[in-house]
């Protein structure tokens, strides 16, 4: 969790108590502590290995599951599909031509025939050509995947579709290897949007997404691929989508699924603390944080002790050299916490 706090690889929301114990160095210490071992059985592994395990289990547990995308055959540029083509054959784990909308369009058709189609978009920055299919990759994602069930009146669905995409900053990615496009997808009814924060979450949420009867866009925080390490159960397990997790430390809430998102957990926390800070790496304007903020104001207006604060990415293209300024990192978060508490 602390890893996540330092790097902000996923969206999270912070609700916090106004009691004095939250203020000052104790908060800081909390935020900066290394991850605490969860105590579950399993080896300590990093996030991409957890993804790899989930994919291996998905292929092994369902003979009608397929993984494909650019360069996935040899293991993928982030190594998430390492060893899978050898184990399951080149018909189930294969390279595609370099064309994101082709990947997503193909995946929709494969899923529509009752298969589990696990498509990899090499970088979330390149998901936009697919927008129509999901509506082209984002089109394919937006117009096709998202509406497949609805527009056919449930005659057909592509619920077996999962689109994986590494996303977010990585320290040196510049414009086209750093973006956080989750808000675009959250605006489209019919798909679910999931972002894991840690290896254990990644494995359980990815398996849940693959087995979910609705199309899922699964963003993997690429900065955490190697950096985030924790004990992960070795076997097959899933974690529920659309259920936020709170109280991890100082009333931190990890939404994990953005669409549909767990409003109730956030609302309960805000009712208790009277304050809310939302943070995501994507640009602040029109970001998903705006949606969260509006919803919480609707529900908790009289309980709020301070304006909802947002610590997010800035409204610029992702700037290579200026990345440290762009990112919603610890100073901005701590200052915002203090401002909100002292409001």
């Amino acid at each position: 969790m602390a890893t996540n706090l330092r790097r902000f690889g996923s969206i999270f929301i912070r609700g916090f108590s106004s009691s004095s114990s939250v203020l000052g160095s104790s908060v800081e210490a909390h935020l900066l502590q290394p991850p605490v071992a969860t105590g579950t059985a399993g080896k300590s592994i990093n996030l991409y290995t957890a993804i790899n395990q989930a994919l291996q289990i998905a292929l092994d547990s369902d003979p009608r599951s397929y993984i494909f995308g650019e360069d996935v055959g040899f293991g993928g540029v982030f190594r998430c599909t390492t060893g899978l083509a050898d184990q399951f054959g080149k018909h189930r784990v294969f390279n595609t031509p370099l064309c994101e909308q082709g990947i997503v369009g193909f995946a929709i058709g494969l899923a529509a025939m009752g298969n589990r189609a696990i498509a990899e978009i090499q970088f979330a920055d390149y998901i936009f050509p697919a927008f129509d299919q999901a509506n082209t990759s984002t089109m394919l994602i937006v117009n096709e995947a998202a509406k497949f069930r609805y527009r056919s009146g449930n005659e057909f669905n592509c619920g077996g579709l999962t689109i994986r995409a590494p996303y977010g900053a990585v320290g040196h990615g510049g414009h086209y290897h750093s973006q956080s496009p989750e808000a675009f997808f959250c605006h489209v009814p019919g798909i679910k949007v999931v972002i894991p924060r840690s290896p254990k979450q990644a494995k359980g949420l990815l398996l849940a997404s693959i087995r979910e009867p609705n199309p899922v866009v699964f963003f993997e925080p690429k900065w955490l691929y190697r950096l985030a390490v924790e004990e992960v159960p070795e076997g097959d397990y899933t974690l529920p989508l659309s259920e936020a997790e709170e109280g991890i430390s100082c009333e931190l809430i990890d939404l994990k699924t953005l669409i549909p998102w767990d409003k109730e957990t956030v609302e309960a926390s805000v009712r208790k603390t009277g304050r809310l800070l939302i943070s995501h790496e994507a640009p602040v304007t029109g970001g998903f944080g705006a949606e969260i903020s509006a919803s919480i104001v609707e529900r908790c207006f009289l309980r709020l002790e301070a304006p909802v604060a947002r610590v997010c990415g800035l409204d610029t293209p992702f700037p290579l050299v200026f990345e440290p300024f762009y990112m919603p990192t610890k100073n901005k978060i701590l200052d915002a916490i203090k401002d909100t508490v002292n409001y």
Partner: protein
Amino acid sequence: MASSSCLTKSKTSIIHHLKSIKLNSHNLLHTISSPPFPLPKQTTTSPIDSAIVCFQSLYFRRQLHSATSVNNEVHQLPAEAPLQQVLNYPVGKVKFTPKLAFTAGSTEERVPCYRVLNENGQPITDSDSLEISKELAVKMYTDMVTLEVMDTIFYEAQRQGRISFYATTTGEEAINIASAAALNNQDFVFPQYREPGVLLWRGFTLQEFAHQCFGNKYDNGKGRQMPIHYGSRKHNYFTVASTVATQIPHAVGAAYSLKMEKQDSCVITYFGDGGSSTADFHAAINFAAVLEVPVIFFCRNNGWAISTPTNEQFRSDGVVVRGKAYGVPSIRVDGNDALAIYTAVSGARKMAIEEQTPVLIEALTYRTGHHSTSDDSTKYRSIDEIEQWRGDQNPVKRFRKWIESKGWWSHEAESEHHINIRKQLSQAIQAAERVEKPRIADMFNDVYDVLPKNLMEQEAFIRKTIKKHTQDYPSDVPL
């Protein structure tokens, strides 16, 4: 990146250099037939590196050659400097040529169009054509007429304001019905929107068509899409989307599924000349070629993408030539000749399944109707042109001449069929009109497999609002 730009640079240098010298074809031929130039020792590097090395040596040789040509008029290269004849690039073995020859962007002759029946409905001598039974021929013909009549009546219904929109298939009846007849009903269809005849062939009833156009509670699509957006799981016909060509890559994914399951069936996807310009078409046909899947790409080249004629759509010889570029077997067929389409699609289906390969079919035809009820095509094309295509080229008339010449059809049968279909359609429309709309819950169902909380809340909110302001909401939508 560095390697490829180096390669490009070498190529450019060669071309530039060649332009500046006097070429001697005899010499160059000799050069090509010389024994391979021994590659330097570092050939243990990647194929790309080898290619660069080769280009460098080629360039080097050319300098030598030009020097000798210009200064000494020597017509042969020194024996110790032979050229590499063939190089095994990652793309395959490629021969070199000393000729600076760009491939032509077009050929003088267009790809010929496969035809069986002439304008008089008579088989062309020596035509390759499958035998078809009387029963099949009559069903093909009657379905073509049914489609024609359905279009006429639904079009009128739209003009009368009874349905919100319609698009006819007029002029493309043979494409619809004959392609469907050549397929097995187990084959999957990913349509554009001008192929309702395929559904008709498979047994989707006129009443079902009417229910969809009226968006009532019996519409498979639950009233969510515009008229003509048909779909039916029972008929393996995926639901139409208005988006042009997004269905093409879906067909490839579905075909991959059939391949993996070793099914004895294929997928067909339809699209128009306009659709062939989309990135989806190019992505899909390339994926299909690489993944070797049983899919038929059926392009209805009807000359018009709404108001855009094909000469503003592409410069290639139509769509059929693209097949070769992607490594996909292809054929151009007369889209107004039902027998030719039937035979071509049958052949394509056989190839697709037995050889596990995609096949591209380009059917040349003409959209004799407007694009849709929202379009008046006389604004951009002449009535004379349209009339021309409604005459001898009309696919329904042509097929009728053939079955009449076989003694399988008569004026009486024609008249009886027309009356029968008109009556059925009139009843279907009246019935569909009376059926209530889908219930309000269907506005929220199927966004996901089950309702998430936000949609539950929104449904509750809508119900409350309707209750409060009943007079402001349509009364034919049940709560």
